[in-house]
């Protein structure tokens, strides 16, 4: 790679301790200490990509800050990333700046949602990205720092400071870091990225504006039907229990649960179809009325639904394909989880991108 002069402004401080405090004072951290991005560290981080450091990857709303490869590298150093992780962070930035992800909305909402990065493909092994036990928890540098780099970029380049532009009422811990691998090895079905049209040997990042995971523990169901019914009952609470005809939710199926379902030959399509057809409520419970102003109005119901029939069953999800799922987590334990996405319909949509060096 040719010599590159770093373009970013420099602050001459005295030592690392002073630097750590400086970044806190400037509001450039997530509330945890960062790794000071010295020129040497940033140069080393840039060896992880073949891209030109001046290349613009995307503009981060709401301030439309320019996420150049150099700026991404600075935030990746701060997060504690290794240079090999940089292509994953760059790809995540490409993904969240796609219009259909609606990052502006996600940054400024009062809702808790925040981008979850899901990694597929061989990079999970080469970078040691955890897809197994404790997948949403701590312990793996790649998971922790890649997820954190994405959040720091949203903060420092987007300008969405908590309490100011970021008006999330409650937030959730995934706003510190939210990055997992799919456990393709333990999945009885095709990997998520293959389902989305990528070759298995391609590595990808999918981003999904998710709430905190809602745990679904079921130790007793022995049949696919019973187990998926349990999952449906939790999915029915996405956003809240009275919001129907919703957009995307993510179901994270633990390997033991996946085995139970697949043992009876259920495919992903079968699961989606079952959930779409069975997680439903009668129209009369969901309509606007004196008891509930926020209910569905007859004008906004889909054409296929008999809006004159109070007993017509309204599906929780507007289409079976609104349900996304992956297999993740450890091989011991009868737990899965679901995460509601942000908004309905076109509000924020999952985006998946291949990782390139």
């Amino acid at each position, binding site marked *: 790679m040719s010599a590159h002069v*770093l373009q*970013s*402004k*420099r*602050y*001459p*401080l*005295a*030592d*690392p301790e*002073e*630097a750590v405090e*400086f*970044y806190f004072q400037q509001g*450039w951290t997530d509330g945890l200490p960062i790794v*000071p*991005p*010295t*020129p040497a560290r*940033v140069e080393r981080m840039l060896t992880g990509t073949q891209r030109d450091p001046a290349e613009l990857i995307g503009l981060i709303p709401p*301030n*439309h*800050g*320019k996420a150049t490869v150099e*700026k991404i590298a*600075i*935030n990746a150093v*701060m997060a504690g990333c290794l240079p090999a992780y940089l292509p994953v962070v760059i790809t995540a930035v490409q993904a969240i700046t796609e219009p259909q992800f609606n990052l502006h909305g996600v940054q400024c909402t009062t809702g808790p949602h925040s981008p979850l990065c899901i990694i597929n493909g061989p990079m999970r092994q080469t970078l040691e990205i955890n897809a197994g036990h404790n997948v949403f928890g701590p312990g793996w540098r790649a998971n922790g720092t890649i997820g954190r780099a994405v959040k*720091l970029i949203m903060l*420092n*380049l987007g*300008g969405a400071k908590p309490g100011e532009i970021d008006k999330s009422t409650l937030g959730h811990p995934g706003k510190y870091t939210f990055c997992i691998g799919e456990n393709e090895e333990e999945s009885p079905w095709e990997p998520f990225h293959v389902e989305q049209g990528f070759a298995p040997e391609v590595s990808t990042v999918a981003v999904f504006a998710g709430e905190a995971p809602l745990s679904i523990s079921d130790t007793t169901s022995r049949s696919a039907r019973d187990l998926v019914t349990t999952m449906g009952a939790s999915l029915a609470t996405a956003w809240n229990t009275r919001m129907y005809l919703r957009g995307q939710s993510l179901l994270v199926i633990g390997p033991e649960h996946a085995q139970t379902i697949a043992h009876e030959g259920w495919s992903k399509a079968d699961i989606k179809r079952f959930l779409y057809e069975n997680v439903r409520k009668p129209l009369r419970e969901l309509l606007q009325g004196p008891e509930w102003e926020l209910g569905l109005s007859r004008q906004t119901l889909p054409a296929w639904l008999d809006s004159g029939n109070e007993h017509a069953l309204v599906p929780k999800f507007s289409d079976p394909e609104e349900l996304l799922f992956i297999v993740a987590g450890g091989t011991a334990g009868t737990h899965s989880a679901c995460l509601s996405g942000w908004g309905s319909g076109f509000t924020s949509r999952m985006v998946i991108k291949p990782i390139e060096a």
Partner: protein
Amino acid sequence: MAEGLRERYDVLDPTDEASPLEKKLAGAVPDLQGKVVGFLDISKPKGDIFLKRLEELLTQRYRVAEVIHRRKPTYTRPAPEALREELASRCDVIIEALAD
């Protein structure tokens, strides 16, 4: 201390740096006689003693009209807006101390 004698540890800016043009300092006051001085104590130990002594000197030697003492709730964050507003509206000059 001369610049060359000190170790330098340079760090880089993680933001877009689309900051506004360099901001100008406020204009000087011609003198302190008859002026209202605001003291913003940043709530570090010994800061109150330090500011009290500055007040004595300003009152005796420079004949300021009034000194208003205010304390930040914590030194770890900027002063609350209401406190800034109050000092800005009542004072001709402000002294903030003592960071360490």
